[in-house]
Each structure stands twice: as C-alpha cells, then as structure tokens.
C-alpha cells in the first residue's frame, strides 16, 4: 500500500518529465535559426562554440540583417545577440556578472554609466588597431579609449511642436529658463530621471546648466506644470502633440534627431532646442572573461566600419562617431546637432547619481 | 386561512414538471404530497415556496395571490431532506437564524431557542456545530429552525428520507406530535407512504406531474384511485378477473357490484390474506420468509394464482405444504 504510494508519486513525476520533455519551445531554437538561415548555436547548458560571438546589449540595439550577414561572412563568426533593458540595466547586468559574463562583447553603455562599468573591471583592455578620425573625441574621460571604444552619439534635447506654437500664436521656447516661464505652463512633458535614460540625461542637462542650484530649477519646473512620464515612449507617443497618440503637450524631451521623424510635406513639424541638449555617447568593449576574445575584438572593429557607421542613424536613431560619415537625407536636413552640448563628467555622475536621483525624486514627488 | 392551488403548472424548458394541479390545504392541517421520485412533487413544493416560477395557474394564501411575492416574504418555512443547516453556525444560531432576521431581541431569542430545542428533544445542544450531530439530530434542529417564527405554512421536503428505518419511524411520530402541538399548517412531500400516513391528515398522490387523488389519509388509503396508486400506497397486489372475484368473495365483498358483468380490480394488502386452518381459500406454499413479527408467504391459491400472505411467526410451514387461508375485508380495496 505505502510502496504503491511511492510508486505512484514516482509515476506522476516521470509523467511530468516526459510530457514537458517533448515540448514545443525546445524546438524553437532550431526553427528560428533555420528561419534566419544562420548556423544553429546551442548555448544551453554548455559552453558556446568558439565560432559564436555573443553580444550583450540593451533593447534599443538594432542593425540590418544584411549588415550582420556581411560581418558573419567576412569574419566567419556567428553573432548571437542578448538584448534586454536599458543602458542602466545593461551596465548593472555586466557588473553583476563581472568575470563570468553572459557574452563576449558589449555595446550600449553610455557616458552616464561608463564610469561604473570601468571601476568594476567589466571590460578588458582593447583599442582597435586603426581608430578612424573623430572617434577619440568621444572617449570616456580618463579611459581614453583603452577599454571602451566610442561607436555613436546622440543628444537629448527638448523638442517643440512648431505647428502647435504657430497655431497658438505663441513663440516657441528656446532655453531651459523658458520652460519655467508661466507662458508655457502645463505644456512640457519629460520622461523621469529614475526610470528612463533620456530622462536622466535631461536631469544632467539641468545640473550642467544650474550647478548645485538645479533643485530650485526643478521646483519651478514642477510648479509650472511639468509632467513626468514613465518612459520616453509615454512622453513622446502619448503626451506629445506630434506623437502617435496625438497628446496635449507641445513640448517634450526627446533627441536632436527626432525632427527627422516628423517630416510632413517636405518640412519637419518639430524642432530640437539646441541650448537644452545633453550629449550622450555609446560605447562598445570586450568583456573581461570573454570566451571568444578575437571574435569580440573583430566585432568592435566592425562597428567602426563605414557600412555600420552609416547605418546607425536609420537603425538606432543616433549619429555616427566617425567623422565624414554620410547622413541620410532627412537627417542631413532636419536633425540639427548642437555645437556644444551640455556635459557632466562620468566620474561625477557615478559618484553622485544616487544622491541626485534621490533629490530629484523628492522634488518631483507630490 | 388556507393554501389554494388553482390549476398550477410548472415546466422546465418547455417540458412540464407539474400540470394543472388543484389543491386546497385548510388551516392547521398537514397535507402529504405522495409520489415516486420524478413525479414532480418537489417541484410543486418549490413552486409553493416561491423558488420555482409557475408557468400558469395560481397559488394563493388566504385568498391572496402569491405570484409576485418573493420567497422570503411569504411567511413560510422550508425544511429540506438533509436539513440544510448552516455549517458555520452553532445549533442555537441555526435555530435563531429566522428570529435574528426578524430582529427579535436577544433575550427573547435565547428563550425561544431553548423552548424550540426542548420541543424537538435537543435541550443542551445549543453550542454544538451541525457537523457533530447525527442525521436525526440534524433534522430535529432543522425542524426547530423552521418552526422558530411560527410560519404560516411549513414546507417539508422529504424530511425523514435520509434517516434509517427505525429512526424514521420514531421521528415521524415526533414530527406529528410537534406539528399538532404547534398547530402548524404543513405541506409534506414524500415518496414514503408510511411517512405520509404517520404524519399527515390529508394525502395527495402525484404521478407524472398530475394530481391523481386527494383526500383524508384514511380515505385515500382505503380507496386508492387506481391500480398504480394502490401499489404505491403499499398494496401488495392488484388482482383482476376470476382471481379478484374469488378473493373478494372470500373477504365478503363483491367486485362485480351485483348485476354488472365487468369485474373491478381488487387491491390486496400483504396482510389481507392470513394463514387460517378454517379459512375459505386453499393453496400451496411457494415461498416462506421469516421476519421478527410474522411469517411472510407466497401461496399459489387454487383458482387465483400466486398471492402474498402472512402467518404468525410461530407457524411452521414451508414450501410445498398445502394450507388454508382467510381474507381480512378491511385490507382489501375494490378499485374504481
């Protein structure tokens, strides 16, 4: 009787194993690989085959398939992409898995998180043999390209809906100071600094402009009816008058490239305010403890090739770092870059991030 | 003050469960609705309680049509086969439940509860939970609860069926005593003719959704309306033709009613034919079975065929023996 109980338990267990064993998602890996026409990589359980280069990146990562196929053809490596979260999540993931990384190479750490990654020895030393002109302008202060190679840059700027201001016979704002002007009460929306990378960049822009007096600025900004959204998508797509949801706010925090995406009948309906921009650079680097170091290095080199650099604007909405790279038509015309974006030193950011964010939360909380 | 049903019909999804039932239940009387399962008797009860909407006909209390009065405002009480005590409440709280609903003050409530528990013979059970009671005790509590607010009409749905035979017999007598003592008007639904006989003043027999016969218990019992009713009322056999004539004659009756040539069927109770050496009938014992009270026989009576018969338990007869039998007139019934 009791022995039976034991046997039946074992039988149920075996049933559980057998049913789940012949599952459907176990097959995906193959079917997906087959669908994309790339060699299968079974990373599960064991070490990845050395032919794989595993890229750890954030979820804004994108490059056209054709380009990636070229990389694979030229180098003989197969690129496996692990993308999740934003730059912050990516950095912390790399810090937490330091020495036993989930991949070989990383792309997407920006200047606000670079210092944290570098202090935690996430990256192995690597500088491409030939660095194209213009690239080193974007080097992380103090690292000077030894671990992190600049790949792209963008500026986070306040954007305005020029059609809205024309229709309301109101001059569009120009500076950060204008945003606390009662004339623009209740018109501005920005993603939050605690939950969004561009939101954090905007906070840094105000810190770069106002120094230690930045909390006063934010107090005034809030008093002037500024709205804080969860992420860029909420602010731009739901609240902004030119976003997908046709919202009610004609001033939004976005990028200097955003006007290139609101072109209608030959002109852009939006404009970036160039005095409000905070420069953000993205880096790539070989991970400490990578299984495929040559592959990782080849990948970093490849990111600086003309083909990739010129694909960056359309793929990830960022500017290439290599000087002289041709821009898409709409970009050349509507994506105006600030000449001198605002900046805060990465070391300062890393040291004071927590304090700043806490202060920011206190000022913006009701 | 009386319950009146005027050609009441209830159907489920178009299929009639009861059809054209007319009934009157005078004040203070206990009416048993007797019928086999599936006969529609429970539906009838539910319709009176207001739990089942009628398809047509009227249900009235004291001349007032109840059609638009919801169950809880009818002033009736319903007791189910298995009591349906509230498992999360104590015995006292169960009995006090309807009193609480009527905002009876707590002192008066306590008094009434102990009075009722006394009536049903469960003094001292106040704090017990229904789960700890026997089936009979549970039914007594359910009865006390139903009687708590002196309902205008008590509806009993197979109140004793779930109990074992000896308990059922005892509780049936108690039920009768309690109902009479409280002067309650009650409508009892049952499939057990003995239960009906023990508890009710009047009897209504229902079959296939129709009222077959209605009247004082003694009358219905003595004069079943037809063969099927007779069998349901506990008659062992219904004899026809020559058999009926012979047995009736032996009991001093004439199923032909004098000159008529048609022979009316004769319903015979088991105890109507008794072993008696001086009796008018003769036959051969086919089977014999002893019970504590009597000996039950099946006898092949000359010219009649097999009938049931009884003998005193001390009698020693077995299959194959020739015996003589007498017939008890009071236990025969000539059917219409």
């Amino acid at each position, binding site marked *: 009787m009791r022995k039976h109980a034991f046997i039946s338990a074992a039988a149920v267990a075996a049933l559980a194993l057998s049913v789940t064993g012949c599952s459907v998602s176990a097959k995906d890996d193959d079917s997906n690989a087959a669908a994309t026409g790339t060699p299968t990589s079974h990373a599960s359980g064991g070490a990845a085959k050395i032919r794989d280069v595993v890229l750890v990146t954030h979820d804004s990562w994108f490059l056209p398939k054709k380009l990636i196929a070229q990389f694979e053809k030229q180098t003989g490596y197969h690129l496996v992409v692990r993308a999740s979260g934003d730059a912050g999540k990516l950095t912390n993931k790399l810090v937490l898995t330091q020495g036993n990384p*989930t991949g070989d190479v990383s792309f997407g750490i920006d200047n606000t998180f670079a210092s944290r990654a570098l202090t935690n020895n996430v990256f192995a030393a690597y500088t491409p043999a030939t660095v194209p002109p213009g690239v080193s302008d974007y080097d992380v202060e103090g690292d000077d390209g030894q671990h992190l190679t600049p790949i792209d840059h963008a500026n986070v700027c306040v954007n305005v809906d020029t059609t809205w201001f024309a229709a309301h016979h109101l001059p569009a704002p120009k500076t950060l100071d204008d945003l606390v002007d009662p004339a623009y009460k209740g018109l501005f929306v920005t993603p939050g600094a605690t939950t969004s990378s561009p939101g954090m960049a905007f906070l840094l822009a105000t810190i770069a402009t106002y120094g230690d007096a930045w909390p006063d600025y934010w107090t005034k900004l809030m008093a002037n009816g500024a709205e804080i959204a969860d992420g860029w998508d909420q602010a731009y797509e739901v609240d902004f008058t030119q976003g997908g949801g046709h919202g009610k706010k004609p001033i939004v925090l976005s990028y200097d490239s955003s006007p290139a995406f609101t072109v209608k009948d030959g002109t852009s309906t939006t404009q970036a305010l160039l005095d409000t921009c905070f420069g953000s650079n993205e880096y790539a680097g070989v991970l400490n403890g990578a299984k495929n170091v040559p592959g990782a290095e080849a990948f970093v080199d490849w990111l600086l090739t003309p083909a990739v650099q010129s694909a960056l604007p359309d793929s990830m909405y960022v500017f290439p770092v290599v000087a002289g790279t041709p821009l898409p038509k709409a970009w050349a015309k509507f994506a105006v870059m600030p000449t001198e974006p605002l900046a805060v030193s990465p070391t300062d950011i890393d040291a004071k991030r927590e304090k700043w964010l806490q202060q920011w939360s206190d000022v913006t909380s009701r | 003050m009386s319950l009146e049903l005027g050609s009441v019909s209830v159907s489920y999804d178009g299929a009639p469960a009861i059809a054209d039932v007319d009934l009157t239940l005078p004040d203070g009387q206990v009416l048993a609705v007797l019928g086999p399962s599936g006969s529609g008797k429970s539906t009838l009860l539910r319709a009176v309680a207001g739990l089942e909407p009628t398809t047509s006909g009227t249900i009235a209390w004291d001349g007032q049509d109840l059609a638009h009065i919801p169950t809880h405002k009818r002033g009736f009480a319903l007791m189910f086969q298995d009591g349906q005590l509230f498992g999360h409440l104590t015995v006292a709280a169960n009995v006090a439940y309807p009193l609480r609903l009527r905002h009876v003050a707590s002192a008066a409530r306590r008094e009434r509860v102990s009075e009722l528990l006394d009536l049903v013979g469960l003094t001292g059970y106040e704090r017990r939970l229904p789960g700890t009671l026997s089936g009979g005790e549970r039914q007594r509590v359910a009865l006390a609860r139903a009687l708590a*607010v002196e309902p205008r009409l008590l509806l009993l749905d197979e109140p004793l069926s779930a109990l074992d035979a000896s308990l059922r017999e005892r509780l049936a007598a108690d039920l009768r005593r309690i109902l009479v003592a409280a002067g309650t008007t009650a409508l009892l639904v049952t499939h057990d003719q003995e239960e009906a006989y023990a508890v009710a003043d009047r009897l209504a027999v229902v079959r296939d959704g129709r009222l077959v016969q209605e009247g004082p218990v003694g009358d219905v019992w003595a004069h079943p309306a037809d063969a099927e009713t007779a069998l349901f009322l506990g008659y062992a056999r219904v004899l026809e033709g020559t058999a009926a004539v012979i047995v009736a004659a032996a009991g001093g009756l004439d199923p032909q009613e004098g000159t008529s040539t048609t022979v009316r069927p004769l319903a015979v109770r088991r105890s109507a034919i008794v072993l008696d050496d001086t009796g008018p009938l003769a036959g051969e014992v086919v089977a014999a079975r002893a019970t504590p009270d009597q000996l039950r026989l099946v006898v092949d009576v000359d010219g009649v065929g097999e009938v049931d018969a009884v003998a005193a338990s001390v009698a020693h007869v077995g299959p194959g023996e020739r015996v003589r039998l007498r017939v008890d007139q009071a236990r025969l019934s000539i059917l219409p």
Partner: protein
Amino acid sequence: MERRHLALIALAAIPVTVLAIFFVLPVTGMVGRGFRPEGHWDLVGVLDVLKRPRVHRVLWFTVWSSAVATSLTLVLGLPAAYVLHRLAFPLRRLVRAALLVPFVLPTVVVGVAFRELLTGPLAWLDLDGTPAAIIAGLVFFNVAVVIRAVGAAWESLDHRPAEAAAALGAGPWAVFRTVTLPALRPAIVGAASVVFLFCATAFGVVLTLGGLRYASVETEIYLLTTNLLDLQGAAALSILQLAVVTLLLAIGARLRPTPTAVTRVPPRPRRPRLADLPQILVTVALLAFVAAPILALVVGSLKDADGHWTMANYRALNTLGTHQALVEPVTTALDLSLRIAIDATLLSVLLGLLVALSVTRRAHTRAERRVRGALDALFMLPLGVSAVTLGFGFLVTLGRPPLNFRDSPWLVPIAQALVALPLVVRTLVPALQGIDDRQRQAAASLGAGPLRRLVVVEVPVLFRPVLAAAGFAFAVSLGEFGATSFLARDENATLPVVIFRLIGHPGPMNYGMALAASCVLAATTAAVMLVVERVRAPLLGGVL
C-alpha cells in the same frame, strides 16, 4: 521515518527542486550580495536602509494603495462573478473569456491606452498621474482573478442552503450575507490574497499611471537594482517584501478555513430576474470600465498616424516595422509566444498538481500538517519577489556548471511557469480539499491502487479546476513581461517584448503596430479562453 512521509517527499520533490533551483537560489544569491556588499556580512547596513524616510513612504503607499485596490476589486468582482457564473444569458462564455484579456495585456500597452483615455475623453476627471489612476489600473488588471476564482466556487455552490434561508424569511441581501458569503469565504479570501499580492507587487501600472510621483516597494527595488546598483537597499526591501508577503499568506491561511467536504452540484445557471438588477448593473459598469481601454486600443490600432481609418497596422504585422524596429516580425513572435505559453502552462499545471496533491493529502500528525502548510506557502512566494531580483539572480547564480542554465531556452517557460504557479496552486488546492476522504477510502476498498484512486476520485473533481488553472497559466505566460524581458533573446522575443520594442521606437507605423499587436495578443487570449470554456461545457453533466 514513516513510508507516508516518504510518499510526501517523493510527491513534493520535483516541484521543490524546481523551485529551489529556479527561485530560491537566484533570489538568495541576489539578496545575499546585498547582505555582503564587500564580501563580509553587513546586517547593520541593511537595517539602516529600513530607517530611510523614503522607504517608509514607499511602504505606506504600497500597503494602502494595494488595500484599496483589493477592496475595490472585490466589490466590483463579486457581483460580476455572480452574474457571469450563476445567471444564464446569451454570450455569457464570450464575456467571461473576454474578461481575462486585461490580465494578459502588457502593462506598457495598457498604460498607453489608459492614459489616452485619462488625458482624452476622461480628462475632466483629472485622474492622470494620481493614485486613483493607479488604483483603477490595478482593478482593471486583477478583477478577472476575483471573477474566475470566486465564480468557479459560486457556480457549483449548493443552492439549497440559500433557498432554505430564503424560505425562513431571509431577503436576498440577508441570504448573501449569512449563507452565501460564508460558503464562498475560502474562495474569496484566496482570491483576495492573490489580488493583494498582485497589487502590492505591481510594477508597470504604478510607473505608467502614477506619473512617477508614487513609488511602491516593487518600483523602488527596480530603481535600486537597475539604476543605482544599490544592492544593499534592494536586498533590504526584498526581504521586507518577502516578510510582508509571508505574513499576508499566514493571515490568509488563517482566515481561509479548511473547507470540509462540500457537496458540489452541477452548475445550473438560471435566467436573470428583476431582483438581480443591481448585480447586473454593477457588472455592466465593470464591463464598460474594462472595455474602455481595450476599445481605445482597438480604435487606435485601426488608425494611421494622421487619424484616418486603416488596416495598414495589421497588414504590417508580418513586417519588421518602420526603420526596422524588430528583428523578427510580430507574427513570428506570436507563434513563439504560443509555443512558450503551452510549455509554461504544462509545466505550471504539472508542478501545481504535484504541489496541490502533496499539500492536500490528509495529514496524520501536527508536524506533518505544519510541513504541508509550509509547502503550500512556499509556492506562493514567487508572487512576492520582484522580477528584477529574480532576473538578476538568474544571471548571478545560474551561470556556472552544474547549474549553467542562464542561456537555456528553457529558462523563459520555467520562469513563466513559476510566476503562474501560485495561481495554479490556489485554484487546485480548494478543489482537492473539497473531496470527501471517504470517496478515496471507498475506491481503495474496491481494490483501487493509489494511482487508480487518483484517476477515479481526483481526476473527475479536478477536471474543471485544472482547466481553469491552465487557462490562468496560459494567460499569465502570454502576458508575462518582467522576467521574460530579462531572459528572452533578441531573435526569439515573445509578443509582449516585441510590443515593448515597437512602442519604444520612433516611427509613425511602430506605434500603430504596437497597438495592433496588442489587439492580436488580446484576441488570441480571448480565443484560447473561449476554447477552454467550450471544452468543459459538454462535460458538466457527465463528469460532475
């Protein structure tokens, strides 16, 4: 040790092992890092975190908003459970299936839809960015839990006690209060505790609808872990969250009386009457409330960037979006989501069955009962742990042999199964507890072995709850975002992950495609739920 204990251990071994590897280990690994910031224990530092005024604010907000949301969910959900499970009316099944849709919609999308409503047609309410908006969102997401869990119990509730009470003079409200409510209490308490946990651990809703002005414990853990890398703070809050969840589970278990063997009757829904009007009105209001954001979604998905009606967003679902926002088209993601959901459902139902069976066998000693109680609670814990903690925990602890699972494609369905497991267990345990032990004894006396007894006694009773649980698990898996976004790889992202990517990428078409993809997700869920409802329909009379 007795053999009976061996049986218990054998039955519980698989789920416990799975939980240990894929939940306990990662979470302790992550929390452990917070407790030992520089390689040595620092308990004082952790305790100091709890003294921060901000932590107190966060905790207080979490507790009161969840409590209010849970109460509202119950107040709205109970009448709807009654109407949808006790009354017969046309399209009843469709409505029931549709009500599960909010449960699976990705928070990003619902956030967008809700905010479009709150800033558009409902702007006059001035709710955008208020706690009221957060609470409305929480109710929207969780009301299906109450309706399904309580509805299932209500459906098969014996109607005779209620009739007896009515016949004794109890009006509908008195009947509900004194008879129905006590009978439904286990189901209500169970559903309420699950809903409270869902509310207290909600993440996207709080961020999106609260306009960042309000932080809950969950959002705070996210911030501390992903942005500030303050593992000590995150560990302190995680422990606090686990403690609160454990406490709540203990209270829930105490309030939830072990149901004695209940007579279950085949459901017999009846036609609505005039007296049902209040409940029907509440249900209609609830349906309108649930339908509004979904309608906003549907309308949005049928319009192009200039506000013209179009099907282009749907036609674009097999493309990669404007500016190639995606690696694989939405159609591929849907296919993958369904495959993963099937796996996750199978896993969670099997694990859930093992847990439920081992927890509900009759305990013979007090110690045994305690062990079973602890087991029961253990499998509820995944509800109380942040997806971020779990996600990072996977990376930290499952990256070295012999537990090198962190790149396994199995991790996604396993993580989703763990997320769904509490719901599955909560659905199955009450059903199993309701089985009269004498049925098992009767089967045994007729010569049925344990396995056969399982088939004869438990399976028929469990059939419907298992289907209900499978429906829940499937829905949870389809809509799961937190853990999945951590684990899904670029080339095999699930539908919610893809929707998230679409909505986060500029380009006129991407927004519309995100809405269209959400509608597809919603429709898929509703369709699956409808099939589940249909499958069990013809079996009602036969099996039960």
